[in-house]
């Protein structure tokens, strides 16, 4: 169907994907099983699930850092061959280069990709302005607060103009106030860039506030349990949206669904630890 016309095919498709690992003691472990997901162009998808269920694995399959054991991953209708230049990735932990200044961190992508220096730096300053960090160009990451480092990371990712943005619990290390500010920054950047986003999180409210569609995963091996569309109007102001009735109702519905998996995942972890 849509796969015949590459201009119409979804940005990301995972079709019956499974991924197995060999654990350090030589055993085979299934992280995700029969996983199906489709992200349309410009769509913001959030993925929630219990801890350790394989959420990050799904992202690694899309980046090409890992390949599926079975099934198929398609980007814009084509297969994944190595690391795709159209992809941007936001990491959970700090992934800035500590030995580079703020501006040198931001221009890393364009320079790796062979852009001329002046062009890269001009663009870098533009992106720093967009994340409100003008004047901090020559500082090093350790001199910045956690929220500022995250904004540098976002600039570093967005400067490559990714058509697909993968985010692996990017704000989980931030305090609650900073996180809300970052949500608005992210939605702002996203509405301009119109990239397709997969946002992995364990925070259900964060997922609903940001996304068009929320995927709930089962406890490992991960597979899609259910998909909830979020019909909250955009542009959204994340700090206020959480008090709306629709938001609360939806969050309750999804939580009822997710709770079983969380308890099951926790029980399994305890059994494993015992």
């Amino acid at each position, binding site marked *: 169907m849509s796969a015949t016309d590459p201009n119409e095919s979804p940005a990301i498709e995972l079709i019956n994907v499974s991924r197995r690992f060999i654990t350090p003691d030589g055993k085979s472990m299934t992280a995700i099983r029969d996983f199906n997901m489709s992200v349309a162009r410009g769509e913001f998808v959030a993925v929630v699930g219990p801890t350790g269920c394989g959420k990050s694995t799904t992202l690694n399959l899309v980046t090409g850092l890992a390949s599926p054991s079975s099934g198929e991953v398609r980007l814009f209708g084509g297969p994944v061959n190595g690391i795709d230049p159209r992809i941007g990735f936001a990491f959970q932990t700090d992934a800035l280069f500590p030995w580079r200044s703020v501006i040198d961190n931001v221009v*890393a992508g364009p320079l790796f990709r062979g852009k001329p220096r002046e062009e890269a730096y001009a663009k870098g300053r533009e992106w720093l302005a967009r994340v409100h960090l003008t004047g901090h160009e020559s500082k090093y990451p350790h001199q910045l607060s956690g929220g500022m480092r995250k904004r540098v990371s976002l600039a570093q990712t967005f400067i490559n103009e990714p058509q697909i943005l993968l985010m692996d619990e990017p704000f989980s290390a931030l305090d609650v106030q900073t996180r809300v500010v970052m949500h608005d920054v992210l939605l702002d950047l996203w509405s301009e860039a119109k990239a397709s986003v997969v946002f992995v999180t364990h925070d259900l409210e964060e997922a609903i506030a940001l996304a068009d569609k929320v995927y709930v995963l089962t406890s490992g091996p991960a597979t899609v349990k259910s998909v909830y569309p979020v019909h909250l109007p955009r542009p959204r102001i994340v700090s206020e949206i959480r008090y709306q009735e629709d938001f609360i109702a939806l969050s309750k519905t999804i939580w009822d669904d997710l709770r079983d998996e969380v308890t099951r995942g926790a029980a399994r972890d305890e059994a494993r630890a015992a």
Partner: protein
Amino acid sequence: MTDTAITSGAIFRAGTSDAEIEAAAAKAARHRKHMVLFWRWAILAAILGGWEIASRTAIIDEFFFSSPSAIYERLVEWITEGTSEGPLWFHLWVTMEESLIGFATGSIAGIVVGIALGRNRMLADIFSIYIKVINSIPRVVLAPIFIMIFGLGLASKVALSFVMVFFVVFANAFQGVREADRNLMANAQILGAKGWQLTRSVVIPSAMSWIFASLHVSFGFAIVGAIVGEFVGARYGVGLLINIAKGSFDAAGMYAAIVIIMVVALAAEYLMTWVESSLATWRPAPLQDH
């Protein structure tokens, strides 16, 4: 609202204004610095004084242990009149030349091989056994072999310095590459870094602090290599001075040579620290009060 009332109405106890506590903290820091300096000099004076008295009162035998004053006289004599084997500066220069060449070649080779093996698991697995075997050889026993192969001149001492330095730097560079943050590697790859770019922009910088740690130690090792080589067979160098002093039962001469080596090694250590701190401006300042 109550908070603002409290802060705006805050009255500090007398003698605890900002300026006063800052001045007190600065004074305490100065005091501490003076204490450290005082004790450093005091301990040095106590050791040298004790040594001098012990050898003058014949508690220790001056023939074997010499005395600080005799060592000082020997140093002055060497510096002003030169040694029995020619000017001191020439010997010192020969030793430094050997150590510096050995240090430079050994550390460059160590870094290159360390990074190459660190980046390639297969090569690392194949060569690790050989490196362990060679590393288990006490370096000093190589001195006679190198002198036999390379002769009494510069080359044999450089070779010995090289092997002293190489393994230390190699081990650290290798470990540093292995410890490179996987997230940073993944980030660089997704941002578009390929092959050599990845090595240059992530692997080498993250191994750098490991490599520097090894360079600190290995300059001392380079000097050891040069001096042991000279000791076993040479025409010039500080090691030769020690050997000649030993042959003529000149204890003061041996200690004087040791003092010279100590001064050189200490100067090199300070130089290395300075180079490292001016290269690694990106690192957070350590929480210390220098």
